[in-house]
C-alpha cells in the first residue's frame, strides 16, 4: 500500500508557512553568533542604533510627560481656584458695598444722593474695636467733617454726633454713649422726652406714667422732621414713682454699621454732645 505524505498534518515543519519565521530565526542566530564571536565589533555596529533608540525613547517620554504631569496641572488648577475664590470674595465685597451705599444714598437717580453738604464716610473701627459707643470714620477735616455734625446710618437713621476730627479721621459719639442726652419724641403722639445714653448701645428715657407708652413704640429725634432712632423694648415701672423708665433699643446695631453719612444739622446735637461726659473734647 502506498503511503502518501500530507503536509497539512505536519504543522511543525511546514516550509510554506514558516518561511519568514525561519528567516527571522536564522537572522537572529546569525546576529547571536556575531556577538559571541566578535562582541566588540557587534557593539560598535549596534551603538548608533542604541543611541537613536535612547533618543527616540527620551523624546517620546518627554512628549507624553507633557500630558501626564499631573503635579504641575494640579498646582496650576489649585492656583486658579484660589484666584477664582479671591475674585468671588472681592465681588461679594463690592456688591455689599454697593448695597450699603445705595441704602445710605439711594439709587443714582435719587435726588437725596445729590444733596450738597453730605459727607459719606466709611467706618474704620466700631465697637468693640473702638471705645464703646464710638465710631471711627475714615473722613476728616480735609473732607469737610466738623465737630457737631450728625451721623446717619442706613435708611437715614441718626446714630450720633461727630465728637472729634483730625485731618483724615473723625470720631462719632453714638447717642447710646454714657451721658449723651438728646431731646426727642415718642409714639404717634410725638410726646417729648429726653433720651439718655447709658453705654453699651443702650438708651433710656423717663416719661410720665400717664403717657401710656407701650413696648414697641418708636422713639424719634429731630432731623429733617422726626427721625426714628429706636424703639421701646422694656418699660421699668416703680409704683412709688409717677414716671416710668423706658429701655430703648437702637434701630441700627452699632456693631454692624459700615458706612455713615455726615450732615450738619445745627447746634442741637452739638449741645447734646457737650453734656456727654465720655466724649468731652
Amino acid at each position, binding site marked *: 500500500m502506498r503511503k502518501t505524505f500530507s503536509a497539512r498534518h505536519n504543522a511543525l515543519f511546514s516550509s510554506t508557512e*514558516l518561511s519568514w519565521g525561519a528567516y*527571522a530565526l536564522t*537572522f537572529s542566530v546569525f*546576529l547571536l553568533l556575531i556577538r559571541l564571536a566578535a562582541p566588540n565589533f557587534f557593539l560598535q555596529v549596534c551603538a548608533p542604533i542604541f543611541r537613536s533608540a535612547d533618543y527616540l525613547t527620551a523624546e517620546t517620554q518627554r512628549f507624553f510627560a507633557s500630558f501626564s504631569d499631573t503635579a504641575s496641572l494640579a498646582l496650576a488648577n489649585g492656583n486658579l481656584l484660589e484666584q477664582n475664590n479671591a475674585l468671588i470674595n472681592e465681588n461679594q465685597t463690592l456688591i455689599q458695598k454697593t448695597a450699603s451705599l445705595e441704602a445710605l444714598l439711594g439709587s443714582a437717580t435719587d435726588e437725596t444722593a445729590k444733596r450738597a453738604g453730605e459727607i459719606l464716610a466709611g467706618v474704620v473701627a466700631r465697637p468693640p474695636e473702638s471705645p464703646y459707643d464710638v465710631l471711627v470714620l475714615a473722613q476728616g477735616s480735609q473732607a469737610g467733617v466738623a465737630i457737631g455734625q450728625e451721623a446717619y446710618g442706613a435708611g437715614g437713621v441718626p446714630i450720633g454726633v461727630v465728637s472729634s476730627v483730625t485731618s483724615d479721621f473723625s470720631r462719632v459719639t453714638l447717642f447710646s454713649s454714657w451721658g449723651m442726652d438728646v431731646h426727642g419724641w415718642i409714639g404717634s403722639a410725638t410726646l417729648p422726652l429726653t433720651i439718655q445714653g447709658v453705654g453699651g448701645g443702650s438708651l433710656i428715657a423717663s416719661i410720665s406714667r400717664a403717657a401710656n407708652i407701650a413696648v414697641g413704640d418708636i422713639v424719634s429725634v429731630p432731623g429733617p422732621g422726626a427721625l426714628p432712632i429706636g424703639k421701646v423694648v422694656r418699660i421699668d415701672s416703680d409704683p412709688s414713682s409717677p414716671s416710668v423708665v423706658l429701655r430703648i433699643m437702637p434701630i441700627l446695631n452699632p456693631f454692624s454699621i459700615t458706612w455713615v453719612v455726615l450732615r450738619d444739622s445745627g447746634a442741637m446735637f452739638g449741645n447734646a454732645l457737650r453734656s456727654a461726659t465720655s466724649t468731652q473734647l
Partner: protein
Amino acid sequence: MIRPLLVLLSFISVIFLPWLVTIVLVLVVATLEPLLPFAIGIFADTLYYHTASSSYPRYALLGIGVTVAVLFVRSQLRTSIIRR
C-alpha cells in the same frame, strides 16, 4: 506581503518601542509565523543580555515557550475534525 512587514516591524519594535508593544505585536504575528517569538527572543538576548542582569537568556527561553505553545495550538486546530 504583510508577513515580512510584520516580521520586520517586530524586530524594530524590540529596539524602538516599549516592551509591552513588542510582546503584543509578537504574539499577534506568532499566529502567522510561529517561529517568530523564538527569533525575537534570541534577537533581544543578543542585544540586551548580560550576565550581570540575569544568569540565563530569559527572552530566548520565553520565545521558545511561546513558539512551542503556538505550534501546539496550530497542530491541534489542523488535526481536529472542525477543519475537515
